[in-house]
């Protein structure tokens, strides 16, 4: 197996794909949106329960590849309990992890489990899989009910 593949399918990714966290409905949700990647058929719904600016609960539902499922699962795990300011910081980290040309050998540990997404960078065709849940979250907060990876984001 190539190193790139091992970077892409790290244990954390495989684990979150196998046992997705917070994959459930969210009764009483205050925000939600559906995200669709029409190129591969991946679908994810992100549900939020916001109390003031605090993310009291966040869940996702849907189906897709290991990368999109694990990314959604990791997202909910990391964001639960954060306020929106910190949420934005995490979203920026993910964006950087997925698109930056730089390597982050020393800084990676700061990103915690999110660092597991860094392997996606070497697979340009798969970046949209990893960003789907995050874009859907942004749409939910912006009051849009659905987004597509093929819309201009």
């Amino acid at each position, binding site marked *: 197996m*190539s190193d790139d*593949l091992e970077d892409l*399918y790290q244990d954390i990714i495989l684990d979150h794909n*196998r046992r997705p966290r917070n994959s459930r409905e969210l009764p009483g949700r205050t925000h939600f949106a559906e995200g669709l990647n029409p*190129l*591969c*058929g991946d*679908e994810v719904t992100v549900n939020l329960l916001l109390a003031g600016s605090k993310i009291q609960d966040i869940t996702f539902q849907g189906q897709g590849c*290991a990368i999109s499922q694990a990314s959604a699962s990791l997202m909910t795990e990391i964001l639960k309990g954060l306020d929106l300011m910190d949420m934005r910081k995490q979203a920026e980290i993910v964006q950087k992890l997925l698109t930056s040309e730089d390597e982050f050998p020393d800084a990676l540990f700061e990103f915690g489990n999110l660092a597991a997404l860094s392997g996606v960078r070497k697979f340009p065709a798969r970046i949209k*899989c990893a960003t789907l849940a995050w874009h859907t979250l942004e749409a939910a907060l912006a009051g849009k009910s659905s987004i597509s990876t093929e819309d201009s984001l």
Partner: protein
Amino acid sequence: MPTLPFDLQKVRGDFPILSTLVRRKPLCYLDNAASTQKPKAVIDRLVKFYSEENANVHRGVHHLGELATDAYLGARETVAKFLNSPSAKQILFTRGTTESINLVASSWGRANLKEGDEILISGMEHHANIVPWQMVAGKTGAVVKVIPLNHSAELDLELMDSLITPRTKILAFCHVSNSLGTINPAKALIAKAKERGITTLLDGAQGAPHLGADVQDLDCDFYAFSGHKTYGPTGIGVLYGKAEILENMPPYQGGGDMIQRVTFEKSSFKGIPERFEAGTPNIAGAAGLGAAIDYLSQFDPKEIHAHESKLLEYAAERLSALPGLTLHSKAKNRAAVVSFTLGGIHPHDIATILDREGVAIRAGNHCTQPLMKSLGVPATARASFALYNTKEEVDTLVSAIIKTQDLFA
């Protein structure tokens, strides 16, 4: 042209890209239903056109204008012979199958469909044979009806009978399913439609490269196919139509080349095929498609079909033996495509891992979202074969799938 014996190693040598390495592994190209590779004869034809013959068609009185026009019209003759069209003027060049179907839906559809008329398509159609009909239905008030599939991924012909009504105006379906490889009994379906005076369109995008087509024998009113899935260049496709139907259809696009006389008040149009070819056509593409057909015509189609069938059978047998693998291509009569899913592993993950082994397959909904829905899967992995694929490549595919299963175990 005399028929050459089908020599697989020699055929592979004719396709330069097949000897390249992908990620340091020999390329194992099994995405032929998306696009086939090109033989050197086609590549050389494009180079020759642009090096020695390039000019616009139908207008130059100069030498190159004549050469370009000859190349373009010669290609039309070659396609006509390939489809056994009664004449070359019934061959329209388009950008591909999609544009061919859009041309029919837009031109024939708007002239012939009224509110309440019915357009009958099948449950295994590519979006290219669904969306244009929905668009013209929206404009005319016609309705789109769908022939469902049975449990063997074949069209349910009994249900089809009940879907044909006096309002059915056109039956449009694929010769071969791009997602499953199912070969539809085109001739029988067309005969059934003819009895009721229903116009017929055959989407031959997967049919032309694997089965060929005899439009007179099929008796279809329209036949569409793409150059790039038939070993030719991208951006060139074909629409065949019966002469009396094409002659009565209004233009699809307006512009140069398709007119007789233009004033600012009104214009009059040329006959077929020019009326449907506004603007400078894809001249080199047409010449390249002609070269692809010439290449294919060297061989006995029965030998190609026998080779592809053997590969398909071998692939189905090896894949079915893998634990956790579901084969979705299960029609009795199939061509060149195996669609499958692996329990718990998404097709995109399969395709990514296979790619690192040099194996190119397609993962996704294959532009057939309604079909995926009826199969109850969001997506499938699809390996599709061409005349140059080998048994060893099927083995490479199977080993790569086993690696995928190991990684996800």
